[in-house]
């Protein structure tokens, strides 16, 4: 299909792809070889990036969008959707990713922010965006800017699920409270407290859910982590460093996929958790200098 046949996508089209990714695992990959391993293991999509978060954490320096050549190399070997990351506020990186035809853009705190005030105007793009959030206010601000999918930020590159759990519980907890609000006046107050648009708060009060799907990211390293995120209400999981920083990526990837599908069946999660070799070495939150989750405004 040629560029000229295209019309601007409707909201249903932009949000629809996230529906297709539900109940799945999106895996970080840095080479076409890893992308193939991820696809063969049952990844529902891959996130193409230059270094996984654990390495970004160790290497320091400025983390940027990946080389287009590397993204095209990954697109060439996969039939599943390919996502890629742009720096927070870096709309030109996002323009490049759209020009490459990536299926999703992650405006990500894992990369070094390019703008300390503004996020990207995501309505200006035809490719849908996913953004991280630590709480409901942040999630709703991103949705107001056009994000079609929200993920918990967690603390990427740590192999430690604790922050993602905090973010999921915070977002879900506030959604439940809003759904139980007694009157409009309470919703006005919620909008003020969350620093979020009233219309989105009212939508949550009506539907009892976030206006877009919510996935979990940041620190997932084991099948049990994935199943826990799903039981806490995530609709899919992103696994970053957890796969390719482990001793045996392929069997671990497959096990995380099965645990995500059968998250409510402890017998299956137990079965797939056996004999996977060493997971990535985790880091405690008191051992890290940079909190990636604090990036974003």
């Amino acid at each position, binding site marked *: 299909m040629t560029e000229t046949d295209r019309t601007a996508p409707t909201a249903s089209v932009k949000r629809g792809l996230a529906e297709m990714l539900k109940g799945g695992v999106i895996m970080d990959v840095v080479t076409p070889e890893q992308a193939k391993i991820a696809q063969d293991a049952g990844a529902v999509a891959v996130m193409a990036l230059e270094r996984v978060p654990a390495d970004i954490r160790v290497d320091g320096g400025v983390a940027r969008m990946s080389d287009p050549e590397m993204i095209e190399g990954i697109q060439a070997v996969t039939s599943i959707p390919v996502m890629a990351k742009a720096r927070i506020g870096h709309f030109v990186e996002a323009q490049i990713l759209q020009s490459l035809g*990536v299926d999703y853009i992650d405006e990500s705190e894992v990369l070094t922010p390019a703008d300390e005030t503004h996020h990207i105007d995501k309505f200006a793009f035809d490719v849908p965006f996913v953004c991280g959030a630590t709480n409901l206010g942040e999630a709703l601000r991103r949705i107001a800017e056009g994000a079609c999918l929200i993920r918990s930020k967690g603390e990427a590159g740590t192999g430690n699920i604790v922050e993602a759990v905090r973010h999921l519980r915070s977002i879900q907890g506030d959604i439940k409270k809003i759904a139980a609000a007694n009157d409009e006046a309470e919703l006005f107050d919620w909008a003020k407290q969350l620093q979020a648009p009233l219309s989105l708060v009212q939508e949550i009060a009506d539907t009892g859910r976030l206006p877009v799907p919510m996935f979990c990211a940041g620190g997932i390293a084991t099948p049990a982590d994935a199943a826990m995120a799903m039981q806490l209400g995530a609709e899919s999981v992103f696994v970053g460093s957890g796969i390719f920083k482990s001793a045996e990526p392929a069997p671990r990837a*497959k096990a995380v996929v099965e645990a995500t599908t059968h998250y409510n069946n402890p017998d299956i999660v137990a079965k797939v958790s056996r004999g996977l070799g060493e997971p990535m070495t985790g880091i405690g939150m008191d051992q890290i200098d940079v909190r990636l989750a604090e990036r974003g405004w």
Partner: protein
Amino acid sequence: MAGSSPPRVGVLALQGAYAAHIESFRRVKNEVRAVEVRNSGDLAECDALVIPGGESTVISKLITSAGMKSSLSEFVADRPVWGTCAGMILLSSAASDAEEVIRFGAIDIEVVRNAYGRQLDSFETELEISPVGMFNAVFIRAPAVSAVGEAVEVLGWDMSHPSLAASINSGYSDTGIPVALQSGNVLVTSFHPELTDNYALHEYFLTLI
């Protein structure tokens, strides 16, 4: 349908848009119980099955690891079944990608995966679907039907992609692509009725039970 109790429609819930289908069945005017199906035991209790959209490669792997391949194969051979998008791929006839994707051959059509292209080529358009009338159809990285068997009825066409239609050549049209088809009690759509608030196709599927 057994007795007078409402039919039990299973939605294969291994991966993909299964929750949206269940939500749609909750909103139809008919009485129906829609349930998630994750293993052969769940399936055995169902009168009909929906295989939803998602990633066909992933759903295929999860069918195999859940040990459901033979029970699903038997089910789709004679029970009412509806495949949307990835589900349509799984119900179609054998193709050369057998290592990656299961094709149950429940309906005599050939389907090309990701034929429309990537997410940038996803689109929404108004179509005429013969049993239900005008329908706003949402296509997400959609597959396309490239050949249709004699016993299969085409219920609706996408006429907005003539160049793709010509290049995949669906046998008897080089201007349109069949997007909704039926053969007996097997229904397939390459688009996603579960992403809209039009429940007419969900209601139509229930008439096949």
